[in-house]
């Protein structure tokens, strides 16, 4: 049974752990103990792709106290696969360039002790 720790351990190691339902094929990111689509507990782990597109975003100007001093900072919801999204911090992008549809790639950094999922705009060669 996948736990929160499995996902966080994967983040710390530099990849996005997802699960796929062996019964109905639905994908969960982070991995879950139960498939929310069909209720099956028969799920297999896989590494989610690191590239995706911004589905929604914001720039935080009034931060919670734990991130005080970092403002303004951008956060985005990124779609990695059809219908599979995740939240992450946006780096290396100006407020003007941030938009829905922007192509991004995941990066894995640490904020103090904690792994932090980040995204950066994809640089086309």
């Amino acid at each position: 049974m996948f736990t929160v720790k499995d996902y966080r351990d994967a983040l710390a190691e530099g990849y996005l752990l997802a699960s796929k339902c062996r019964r109905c094929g639905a994908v969960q990111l982070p991995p879950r103990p139960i498939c929310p689509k069909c209720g099956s507990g028969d799920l297999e782990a896989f590494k989610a792709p690191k590239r995706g597109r911004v589905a929604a975003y914001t720039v935080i100007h009034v931060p919670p106290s734990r991130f005080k001093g970092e403002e303004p900072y951008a956060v985005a919801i990124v779609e990695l696969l059809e219908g599979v999204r995740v939240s992450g911090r946006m780096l290396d992008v100006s407020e003007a360039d941030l938009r829905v549809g922007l192509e991004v790639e995941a990066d894995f950094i640490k904020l103090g002790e904690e792994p932090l999922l980040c995204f950066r705009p994809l640089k086309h060669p």
Partner: protein
Amino acid sequence: MGLQRGVAIIGAGMTRFHHKIHADKTGRDLFVEAALEAMASVDNGIELGDIEALFIGNFSSDSFEHQGHVAALMADWLGLTPRAATRIEAACGSSGAALNIGVMAIASGLYDVVMVGGVEKMRTLTTEEVTDVLAMASDEVYEAAVGFTFPGLYAAMATAHFHRYGSTWEQLCAVSIKNHHNGSLNPKAQFQEEVIDIARRLGERRGMTFRDEMEFLRSPLNPVVAYPLRLFDCCPISDGAAAVIMASEEAARRFTDTPIYVRGIGQASDAMALHDREDLTTIRATRLAAQQAYRMAGLGPEDIDVADVHDCFTIAEVVATEDLGFFPKGEGGKAAEEGRTSLEGDKPINPDGGLKAKGHPVGATGAAMAYEMFKQLRGEADKRQVPDAEVGLIHNVGASGATVVVQIYGR
């Protein structure tokens, strides 16, 4: 199978919601004030001994007042002990969820008369600390940890809504201006001032003048909180409490000739994390909770004369008026801009000023919505009265939509 017994509201009270005037009061002081007003509002009078149970919505007195177990505390302070007292928590939908439990408690046959209240004393903390506490209502591990705040989640919804439907920030401003106007008519509202008057007042202090509201709202006096949402897109941080008294239809007749009947109730949940929702521009739990309530009431969106919807942020009101079926998907912003949701419009929304102007002591908000409908449907809403309102709806959301409660009332 439907509810085994009908339920009605026979009394309602609330403190003014405010960020300053309650500085010297604790949560228990605020709740007692609201509860006493609710009792005093019962037409034929009511005694404490008539109230058989208490349900209290509260989000996090743990964080705000270092006090848990608050339902027992409120029962104690109001003099309701030894009656059963239970706290209900569903983030900003806490007292909405408590209202549904109040209905079930009576319909079950266990109690004939119960009090359902809500309370939140938030102004014990700084704005940053409050932001931190509110973020607990989202998914700590997957959202709050990467830096999402509560305004941030709704801001993200706004960007998706703008992108998909072409709605605009200017439409959101129409919501804010309308709600401030309604608040100016409501003696219980935290802000009782039109946006244009606030613009004039703040401008004078800084030697600035504004042609109209929009010039003010675009100015640095309306700073960005979480892009694209600015200060005037966000409800304030508030202290306050509200309470309603519910009774079985049969018991209700002893207390008043004009009870307000609960016609339908609904509640739904959804993924905690916004990113996990099927559609970022819709709160699915609103659709499902409304469906349940409409079905139980045998009514549809077109039958609703007045509604209090959960406008913690301006975009939330736009999305809610769509998801409740008042306007086609994507046209909520346009409807606000056209004045259709104003007191004079065809679908008056948040006549009390909404969370934006009335204030949002989170755990008290659902109960305060029920208070407003009690006043509106009894024709007691004074300057903010929606003429001939016979059917009212409340819509109370927990966090970014992982919990939604809807209740429909009728005269």
